[in-house]
């Protein structure tokens, strides 16, 4: 059985990260960066990379990383989710750097990863195109060979931090190819000719999303052209697990603050937490959060050891943890009563993260259907 507990050293690392985020990412700061167009504090990001080394935590040492695993990364993500940190971590490290680490040539990794790991550059991964298409296999954007380079045409949506990143890792396909065939990863500078970037208004301003339009943008391939499907699938599985840890951290925090509120808010001459209707909601939240946590930790351990059933575990984890966080955040507002529905109270910050993270990279229904296919349920099993 995989190890499902963190070691004392790992817990020590967690408290260092937590102390840092308590100081640098209180709700007032979160609110400030939600209003901001770039959406994060460059000084805090630099210190997270310089002092705590979070940027390269899970990357190999040869590319400027520290060669820890998804398990150590899960601690960072839980703490970031707990603090609702607004940072380039998810877009630049979890998505873009992981895609490069798994899908680029050695030379390209050496060129790109150290700058991402140390925070001096920020990248975004552009793969999704339509609402329903969280699978890179549905990518329509074309890459036409043009000498040693390629020309990219098409549009990307839901690109995390795509409007402000220094560089973009773009998924496009050989014209005429379909499905897993012909997919490649490209590097495009943020200010490339023919690229138009627009930040999208979104449900959760603590994680910015962009639309990117490419009209004949020149790009260099990051890996061997036409072979990126496997690396992308793996990147997205890892990203689902990473996002799940962020959600676990948020959900744990929501449970804590809600229970705290229920102990102190008095109605009918009693703390509302003495009413069973409230108590039982809190108990159900605890069960959901504990199950979500065990599941996410198990998935991180599986990722660290390169388990074969990772796609199934990633789908299961994303679906189950999304539901747990969404439920916790919803009940949290309910238990806070009217005050929970106001802008000034922090409940909605978590609620927005819970909602948006549940949808990002595919919602629970999408991932349960993926599970069903991976379990070879139904006639569709031939194409799974």
């Amino acid at each position, binding site marked *: 059985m995989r190890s499902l507990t963190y070691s004392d050293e790992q817990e020590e690392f967690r408290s260092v990260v937590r102390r840092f985020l308590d100081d640098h990412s209180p709700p007032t700061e979160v609110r400030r960066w939600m209003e901001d167009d770039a959406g994060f504090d460059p000084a805090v990001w630099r210190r997270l990379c310089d002092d705590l080394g979070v940027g390269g935590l899970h990357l190999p040492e040869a590319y400027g990383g520290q060669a820890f695993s998804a398990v150590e990364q899960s601690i960072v993500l839980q703490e970031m989710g707990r603090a609702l940190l607004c940072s380039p971590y998810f877009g630049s490290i979890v998505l873009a750097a992981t895609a490069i680490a798994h899908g680029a040539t050695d030379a390209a990794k050496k060129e790109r990863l150290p700058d991402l790991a140390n925070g001096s550059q920020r990248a975004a991964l552009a793969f999704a195109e339509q609402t329903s298409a969280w699978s890179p296999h549905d990518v329509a954007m074309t890459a036409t060979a043009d000498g040693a380079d390629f020309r990219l045409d098409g549009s990307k949506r839901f690109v995390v931090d795509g409007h402000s990143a220094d560089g973009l890792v773009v998924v496009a396909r050989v014209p005429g190819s379909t499905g897993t065939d012909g997919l490649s990863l490209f590097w495009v500078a943020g200010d490339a000719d023919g690229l138009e970037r627009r930040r999208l208004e979104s449900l959760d301003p603590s994680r910015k999303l962009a639309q990117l339009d490419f009209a004949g943008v020149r790009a260099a391939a990051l890996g061997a052209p036409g072979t990126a499907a496997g690396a992308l699938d793996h990147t997205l599985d890892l990203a689902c697990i990473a996002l799940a840890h962020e959600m676990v951290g948020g959900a744990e925090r929501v449970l804590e603050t809600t*229970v705290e509120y229920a102990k102190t808010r008095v109605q009918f001459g*009693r703390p509302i937490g003495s009413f*069973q209707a409230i*108590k039982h909601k809190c*108990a159900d939240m605890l069960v959901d959060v504990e*199950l979500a946590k065990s599941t996410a930790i198990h998935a991180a351990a599986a990722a660290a050891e390169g388990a074969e059933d990772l796609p199934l575990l990633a789908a299961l984890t994303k679906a189950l943890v999304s539901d747990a966080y969404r439920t916790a955040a919803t009940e949290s507002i309910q238990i806070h009563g009217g005050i929970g529905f106001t802008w000034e109270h922090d409940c909605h910050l978590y609620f927005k993260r819970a909602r948006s993270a549940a949808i990002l990279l595919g919602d629970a229904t999408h991932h349960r259907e993926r599970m069903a296919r991976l379990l070879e*349920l139904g006639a569709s099993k031939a194409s799974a």
Partner: protein
Amino acid sequence: MTVTEASVRAEVRAWLEAHWDPELSLRDWRERLADSGWGCPTWPEAWYGRGLPLAMESVVRQEFRRAGAVGIASGGGSGLAAPTILEHGSDELKRALLRPIITGEHAWCQLFSEPGSGSDLAGLTTRADRDGDEFVISGQKVWNTSAHHAQYGMLLARTNWDVPKHRGISYFAFEMEQPGVTVRPLQQMNGYASFNEVFINEARATLHQVIGQVDQGWSVALATLAHERRLAGIHDDTPLEGSGRAIEEYREERAHVMAPYVWYPQRYGRVDLIVKRARETGRDNDPVVRQEIAKLLSLQRAAGWTAERAKQARVLGRPPGPEGSIGKLCGSHIARQAADTHALISESDALLAGEDGPEAGIIAEILLSVPGQSIAGGTDEIQRNILAERQLGLPRDPTTDAGKPFRDVPRNVAD
């Protein structure tokens, strides 16, 4: 020497190779288990065990299964009574009671619930009045699994009516086969009769049969209940293959003892049948069925990982968390969801039972057995209270009986 999974595995494997003999009588084999400590490896070495950490239990069990060897007698005796006696019993009780539990000579039942006190267990009114070195016991117990074939009962009775309810209860190792004890089966909604009413009329127990101290039985009862929550998710029903005297006698024992409980696997919801049935019926093409199956399997796995995480934390010496009640709640969630998914898969066939029903009646049996799961061993509501109050620290329910002598506390009219 540090104990590792590998070292334990190697040791138990070597021992089984040298000692497992299917031609022994079941009784002789289990005597051997008792002497070696491998039958209950997490018990103390002084008491038939090997003092291994809890986490090693499954390792040993795997090796027994691999070798095709029979284990100690299972049921309320080894699962609930023995750990309670180990924690709270006198050496005299340990000497008298543990070995027959291992060999299967004594089956045990739990005589906790009463018509007037189920969830409010501490409100019980069965009385045990002191008579020299003995107690005279009278009252009525109910819902008692195994009572009709048990030699001993874990019995709670009131020994002091002048103190608040939790402080006047004693816990007895109660002999079932004596004058004044009448056991009557109760039929359940699924048609089976696996539990009983037990009428006790001036039966007797000695002072030495008190587990823990007189009047201090509540904390002993809590220990039993904690084991019960922990066990709620564990049910190992692997039927033994192979031949030999011990195995045949074990199969007979099982057929006899388990006869009233053939529905037990059904009460857990039979998640193991879900995918097979969905495929066979072609319902696995239905998007709603696919969603429900994925939800159910996710919940089942998450519950397993949560139990495993708690176990690993215990091995590391970290304080126990809420896992008992979480496990109990997950067990009933899984059972309910599984029943609903079975009904969804079976469509109108779910109307039919017995030989006319799908899986020769098993599906109907699942639908009619699962409701017991969220009541037995502490209801879902009580588990939520425990989590909210003990784990999350929310204020306790206001009570009307706190601090009052039990004789002045309002009770069910029938009592």
